[in-house]
């Protein structure tokens, strides 16, 4: 039986369609594709800012299962980490964290996410991501140290865990 599933490239294009239902269908199909939709990671992160609830929900669900991003997507994800939309920034930061040491070029952007005024879930995730990057995140030590004394217990704990992974 021929495979009737549209290719990932077509679904990525469809995520930008004018029709919201078409965008939602594309996000759902990418979600069902699982890790094979990895090349859609950046497009799915962008879709987290969609006005349509269905697009956002399916995009977020797809991102949950994607795993670590390929190296060629690190730069775009790093740019998205500074997005004003918290859900976009949250997922960009999450994917960068999954990239581990391979996402070390994103350390300055992740450090910037720790600043007070950023959405708390993004700050927390940035601490987590820096912890995943490990020793290569040493340049974020000062920001992590400040976050470790934050009143938010989760932020404080994750910053402490990230600091524990830094050398010396």
């Amino acid at each position, binding site marked *: 039986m021929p495979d009737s599933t549209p290719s990932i490239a077509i679904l990525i294009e469809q995520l930008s369609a004018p029709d919201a239902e078409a965008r939602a269908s594309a996000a*759902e199909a990418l*979600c069902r594709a699982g890790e094979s939709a990895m090349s859609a990671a950046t497009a799915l992160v962008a879709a*987290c800012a969609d006005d349509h609830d269905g697009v956002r*929900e*399916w995009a977020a669900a797809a991102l*949950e299962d994607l795993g670590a991003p390929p190296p060629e997507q690190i730069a775009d994800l790093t740019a998205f980490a500074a997005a004003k939309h918290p*859900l976009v920034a949250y997922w960009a930061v999450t994917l960068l964290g999954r990239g581990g040491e391979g996402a070390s070029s994103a350390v300055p952007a992740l450090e910037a996410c720790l600043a007070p005024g950023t959405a708390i*879930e993004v700050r927390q995730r940035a601490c987590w991501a820096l912890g995943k990057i490990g020793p290569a995140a040493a340049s974020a030590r000062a920001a992590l140290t400040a976050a470790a004394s934050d009143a938010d*217990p989760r932020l404080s704990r994750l910053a402490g865990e990230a600091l524990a992974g830094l050398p010396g």
Partner: protein
Amino acid sequence: MARALSTKSLVRWLAALLAALSLIGGLSLREPSRHPSSQQATAIFDGLAPVSAHAADAVSPPGAAVPAPPIGAAPGPSLLPASRPWDAVLIASFNIQVFGESKIAKPHVVEILARVVRQFDIVAIQEVRAKSDGVIPRFVDAVNADGSRYHWIIGPREGRTVSKEQYCFLYDMNRIEVDAGSIGVVPDPGGKLHRPPMHVRFRTRVVPESKAFTFWMVDIHTDPDEVPQEIDALVDVFTAMRTARPDEDDVILLGDLNAGPPQFGRFTKTPDVTWAVSGATTNTHRTKTYDNLIFDRRATTEYLGRWGVLDLQSTFGLPLDRALEVSDHNPVWGAFYPCESVGAPAASGGIAGVAQPVR
């Protein structure tokens, strides 16, 4: 297993509770939250409405002898009975991926989901994701379209981002009732769990109330990016739930753990804690073990040693892409004796009446 309460045991329980609370730090039980359906649940629990004619085939005849739980468990997954037996309560967990407006609008998907639910007495659902409150009522209408009498309890929207999820329990009112005062969410002031679990205490109603199996169910969907930390926190949740009430030691923690038994961490070192699903995949792609039911084998001697994974593809004859339209997870289930066990001899070196769990 039932606990008899005496002054001595109450004092011991209070001491244990204090010790447990001091150990778990940020995780402790908070007052149950009230949800729209809990008032209906109160009516069910207080009223103990007579079992309808519809349920007559499913329950034991009045005054029937209550046999002991069978000895011997299947070494692997069991076949789901064609119809629900009166001498077993079938409890399932099902992550219905992104269960919201788009999924409920697909009749062919809803039909499969309804057929899944009707095979079980209670289904703990994860991933209800909808802005409106209408999805579950519409779904329950679909489940009950064949004359079934399922009802639901749904939790608050949870999650750290704007993309939130709800836990939900569907249960067959002919066979199960809810302790309305037991509905709540485990407080998590330390932010250890992305979606703090929801707890509800149930009671079987296929046997006289004095003999009915009562138990906590704790529904959880872990964050796939923080599985080890969340599993560790769930051990504390499980421990706290075991002492949440002096008269209840049966706790079934179930859901999408995003982890299989090799990743169960401190659970594997906690005496007598065991799980139903072992050596089987639970995702629709048949590649991972994510879903399970965890309980204490010495306390929950009602476990019959029967468990399974309801494979959506083979059960409903669906190709993979159609099964994935239903969910990326298969339901998992375990069978429990509907009567409260009165205890097993602690010195026996084993568990009387039930098989040793498969690890």
